[in-house]
């Protein structure tokens, strides 16, 4: 039964060689599928979204700067929606950032035991709550709070401020968790170096820890902004859904790119100008998210270059 060395080698080598090529083929196919999906997606949104400007005769400039979104009248000014999207995004980030950063500092620098075992799991629980639940809570708690704080000025309570507050709570776990990771990744040697120079804990946190974590912290913020910018359902439930004109203040009911897209879809017939205009909103959303990702990559590569 003894095999020669050659035979043994052949038997062993054949399946190995096959496995190599099967593995290569399978993983390669996966990469191809992902690449095709990404390209097809971008292509489709771009094609449909650009039809508005190239086939339907609506100027890109007037689309972006027009102040009235009244599709039934054939008026497609997306500025109120763009303003709505940006104001809820920026405001919610503004609300979230200090809280996320403060708790990250507490968790990493002050009470790591409590932070890692109790606080972080608690925060991560928030990630799993569905948008509609946030919307529901926002509708009953935040909008009511707006009414009781601002009285008649708040109207029903629905508006940009309510949307921003609900979004702030929604992005809080993302920004907090990423901030915690960012601070925890700062080498302990930096802290020791700072303490050894006679610096206090707060001097160390402020001048060394936050400074060296800055690129990662910015990534955390942008991840939060990306989420806020793209969130639809919860915002729709609390923002009031007024698309037709520019909001005059933070208490004014408004709409965002995402909420207008969702609500417009029920009335638009496929192939109509209105339908294409909704795709154009989608295109703006896509461009914005690509832009956010680009910034994250720029920060990443800059940070990497610095740490070389």
């Amino acid at each position, binding site marked *: 039964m003894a095999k020669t060395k050659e035979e043994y080698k052949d038997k062993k080598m054949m399946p190995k060689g096959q496995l190599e090529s099967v593995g290569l083929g399978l993983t390669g196919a996966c990469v191809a599928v992902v690449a095709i999906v990404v390209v097809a997606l971008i292509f489709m949104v771009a094609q449909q979204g650009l039809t508005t400007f190239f086939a339907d005769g609506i100027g890109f400039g007037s689309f972006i700067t027009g102040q009235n979104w009244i599709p039934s009248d054939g008026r497609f000014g997306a500025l109120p929606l763009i303003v709505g999207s940006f104001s809820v995004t920026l405001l919610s980030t503004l609300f979230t950032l200090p809280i996320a950063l403060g708790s990250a500092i507490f968790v990493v620098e002050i009470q790591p035991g409590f932070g890692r075992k109790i606080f972080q799991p608690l925060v991560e629980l928030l990630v799993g709550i569905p948008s509609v639940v946030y919307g529901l809570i926002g509708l009953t708690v935040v909008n009511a709070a707006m009414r009781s704080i601002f009285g008649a000025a708040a109207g029903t309570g629905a508006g940009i401020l309510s949307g921003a507050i609900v979004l702030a709570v929604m992005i809080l776990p993302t920004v907090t968790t990423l901030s915690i990771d960012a601070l925890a990744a700062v*080498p302990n040697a930096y802290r020791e170096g700072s303490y050894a120079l006679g610096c206090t804990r707060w001097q160390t946190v402020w001048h060394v820890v936050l400074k060296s974590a800055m690129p990662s912290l910015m990534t955390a913020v942008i991840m939060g902004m990306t989420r806020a910018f793209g969130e639809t359902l919860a915002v729709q439930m609390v923002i009031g859904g007024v698309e037709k004109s520019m909001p005059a203040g933070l208490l004014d009911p408004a709409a965002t790119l995402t909420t207008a897209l969702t609500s417009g879809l029920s009335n638009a017939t496929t192939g109509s100008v209105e339908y294409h205009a909704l795709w154009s909103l989608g295109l703006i959303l896509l461009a914005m998210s690509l832009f956010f990702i680009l910034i994250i990559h720029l920060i990443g590569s800059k940070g990497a270059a610095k740490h070389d």
Partner: protein
Amino acid sequence: MSQDRVFEQSEHRSVQGVETEIEVKDFDLWYDNGGFQALKHINLDIPKSRCTAFIGPSGCGKTTLLRTFNRMCDFTEGVKTEGTLKFEGQQIFEMDANALRVRVGMVFQHPNPFPMSIRDNILYGPARMGKLSKEEGDEICERTLTEAALWDEVKDNLAKSGLALSGGQAQRLCIARALATEPEVLLMDEPTSALDPISTSIVEQLMVELAQEHTVVVVTHNMQQATRVADKTAFFYRGNLIESGPTVEVFSNPKEQRTQEYLSGRFS
């Protein structure tokens, strides 16, 4: 630094009759809330403006003792101490820790420049103590970088990141950074163990020079390094101070058998 100056300095200076900078008396230290005793009844005088070396095998407590001198041990949970530790006659554990660390600087085993410019690294300590004018900043940079033998290499590029320096340069930057708060004592924990031979010899020369005006305490794994830089040597073994004295005496005429065995390489 000129060659003959270095030669002159590498001769060991007397440590007898020299003022004591740090006094360690019947000092014990436990980790893990008393679960493990890392230092046992240490008695040692660190002479002022001299270089003292701590030698001994790994895990014998050299770093532990060094980190009590600037209270870096405060950051380790569960540390308990007993006995006396005095810096210039004051109880170290009764001093304000931050004020103490300004006067007792430290250089670590692995160079740890901050991720900022060379200039900001140097001025990090001074800037925390008060506002600095540009001239004061320039002056501190030039003085400390010159003292750390790095000035000529970086003077045209102080805006460069401290992380972009080579290991040896980074360690000298850390020495300059420590000197910027004008400390009286400089603690160095195996400062050359991560460096190449050329950088090592530069840093060794620095230790000798710095010990003219500072009290230098260096932990070293390398016995030859102790003979080259230290005026006084203390040999530790398993948390005990076995023997201490003038470097020449400890190396040429060790009193304890443990020391003899260690020096002759019978264990390490």
